[in-house]
Each structure stands twice: as C-alpha cells, then as structure tokens.
C-alpha cells in the first residue's frame, strides 16, 4: 500500500470502519511509514478532541421535566385512543357473547318447557281417565276449576266450530297450579294449557307457532297475565284456529 492510498483510508481507519483485510494493510503501512503514522495520530487526536468538545450541551432539569410531562400526557392520550377500537371490539364481542348465551339459555329453557307440556299431553291421551271433569259444556268445565286455581279464564263458544270440548283437569307446573283442557277436532285431540304468566313457571318467551320434530303442532301466547299453550297432532292451521278462538274468548 502506498501513502496516497493509505491517506484515503485513514478516516475509516481511525473510525474502525475498515474491512479487516484493509485495516491490516493500512496498519502494516503505518508501522513502516512515520509520515502516515503521524497523520493517523493527528486524525485520532482530532477525533478525540471533537468528541470532548462536541459534548457540550446538557438539557436543564426544567426542560427534562417539561418533556416528561408532555410525553406522559401524549402517552395517555395515545393509550386512550389506541384502546378505543379494542375496547369497542371487546364490548361488542362481550355483548354478542352475552346475547348468544342468553338466547341459547332461553332457547334451551323453552324447548324443555315445551317438551314437558308435550309429555303431559301424551300422558293425558294415554290415560284411561284423561280428564277430571268430563263435559263438553264450557259452563260446566270452567266452574270446576273454581277454588282450584288462583286465576280464572274464559272458554270459547264452540257451537259453530269443528272443535269439541272434552273436559279438563288440574295440573302443576313447577309447583304452580294450572288448567289442562282437552279438545277434539275430528279424531285429533288437542291440549290447551293455561297457567299464570310468571317467571319460573313456563319459560316459553314470546308468542310463537311451530311444528315440532315429532309431528306435534304448538302455539303459545300470553294474554291478561296468563300463558296459553295449545299442543296437538292436528295441523298447525287447526292449532292456530283453536288458539284464535281462545284469544277471542279471553278478551270477552
């Protein structure tokens, strides 16, 4: 390596930024060349002098405090802003989860209540004495429940309809007394359950009509503080027709 090339590399040499092989070559030249070695020493001294001279400004404690306060406020703001979408998303997710769980719970409770009523209906049909009061006359059946139920209800006039009242009996659902009325439509039997619309008695939710997987049609609604449920193996249209008759009677 000659002196010109060495001088070109001296800045990188004192900055220790030369590749190892070039550094070695410069080092070797400096050992042999007093002039270049002197120049290298001078540059190193200037680098050290610059380092000492350049470190001359220090922030005041007041300024440091001001910056810390600024950063703290900004960080809090950014933290709040940054969390808004996350919190919103979390809130929505939580709400969805709560709604889903609530709906699932309600659905499960409703299915259980309907299954229970269906069991009662089927058991009634299978019984040798399906009803306790046997009468096609609503003015006989309704009074039979007097003193047995903490509520009263109206029965529809069936003279001009295809339905026939067969009778009724007292039932208990979740320790709460209710009425089960049995109707006949052609050869089909339909049960009408009437209970007080109170929490924990029948968790059936809003008024619905549906046909179960087992072929039974069901319709339920609330009217005047009472819960009505009509179940039968007739078509859903027939169940609905009986439901309408009961609704009309309830409003009389």
């Amino acid at each position, binding site marked *: 390596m000659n002196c010109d090339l060495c001088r070109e590399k001296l800045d990188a040499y004192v900055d220790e930024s030369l590749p190892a092989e070039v550094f070695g070559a410069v080092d070797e030249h400096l050992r042999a060349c007093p002039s270049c070695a002197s120049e290298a020493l001078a540059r190193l001294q200037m*680098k050290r002098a*610059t380092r000492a001279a350049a470190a001359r400004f220090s*922030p005041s404690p007041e300024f440091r405090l001001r*910056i810390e306060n600024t950063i703290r406020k900004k960080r809090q703001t950014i933290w709040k802003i940054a969390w808004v979408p996350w919190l919103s998303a979390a809130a929505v997710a939580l709400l969805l989860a709560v709604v889903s769980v609530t709906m699932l719970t309600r659905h499960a409770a409703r299915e259980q209540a309907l299954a229970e009523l269906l069991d009662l209906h089927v058991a009634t049909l299978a019984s040798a004495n399906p009803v306790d009061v046997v009468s096609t006359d609503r003015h006989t059946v309704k009074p039979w429940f007097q003193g047995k139920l903490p509520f009263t209800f109206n029965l529809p006039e069936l003279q001009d309809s295809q339905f026939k009242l067969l009778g009724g009996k007292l039932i208990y659902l979740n320790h709460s007394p209710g009425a089960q009325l049995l109707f006949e439509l052609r050869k089909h039997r339909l049960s009408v359950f009437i209970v007080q619309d109170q929490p924990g008695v029948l968790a059936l939710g809003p008024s619905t009509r549906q046909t179960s997987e087992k072929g039974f049609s069901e319709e339920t609604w609330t009217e005047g503080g009472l819960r009505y449920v009509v179940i039968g193996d007739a078509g859903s249209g027939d169940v609905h027709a009986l439901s309408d008759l009961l609704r009309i009677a309830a409003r009389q």
Partner: protein
Amino acid sequence: MPHFARLYNFACWLTQDRAAAEDLVQETFVKALKGFSSYRQGTNFRAWMYRILRNTFLTTQAGLRATVSFDSDDDGPSEPATAETPESFLLARVEQQAVVSALEELPVNHREIIILCDLEEMSYQEIAQTLAIPMGTVMSRLSRARKAMRALLTAGTGGTAR
C-alpha cells in the same frame, strides 16, 4: 426517555440555539411516540430517533436554509489528504474552544456527520440510516467535513488551510 440528553446536544449543534433545540427535541419525542408503530422491532432504535430529530429539523426555517448546502459535494471522490501539515503538532495547541468554534462554523451537513461519527460513535451504517444516504456518501461527506474542519482549525491557529 432514551437518548434524551444526547438528542438535546445534537439538536443544539444543529440549530445552534437552545430554545430552538428544546422545541426540536420536544417535537421529536412527540413524533416518536405517535409514530412508534412505524418503528420496526430489531432495527436500530438510536438511528430511528436521530433520524426523526434530523427530519424535523429539516422542516424548520434553519433546517431549510441548511439544506441549500446539502449534497453539493457528496458524490465526487474525496480528495486525498496531503501530508505537509503536522496535524499532531497543530492539535496539541488547539484549545477545546477552537474545536467548538470550528464545529460551529462548519455547514450543518458537515457538522452533523462529524458529531454522529466522533461524538455519538455511530458506525457508517448507522449514519447512513440516520441521514438516509448511501454508505459511500457517508464516507465522502465525512472525509470532506474533516478536511474542512482541519482547514478551520489551521486558520484559527494562524496556519494555512488545506
């Protein structure tokens, strides 16, 4: 606050005004905080902070004036230093104030690269990241900056500028 004191010192050298340096540092930290998501983990945090400070400086009036002298002499090959002046002898007599004065007289692009290299001891790679220039430009600019500084020191001591 990482690098706070160092950044303040660098800001003072860039602006040559303490009040302006304080504004610059404050804006740098606010920008760094806001833009922290743009910082890529694993990359050089110090270079990232210095780059924010420098870019912020370039948007100020003083910074805009300084950019006029930027990049005017970077791309050509650096001139080899001559051997006539015994710098070791010269520097032995140079007072620290003389170095300070020389730094103050340098154009901003020379001053900043010398401070990043000599005071902050950044590698050429770090300087390239901080100043957003290629490595070759770092080396040539540094060489010219030191040559200019030597000239100022020599003139200040009654010697001959090289």
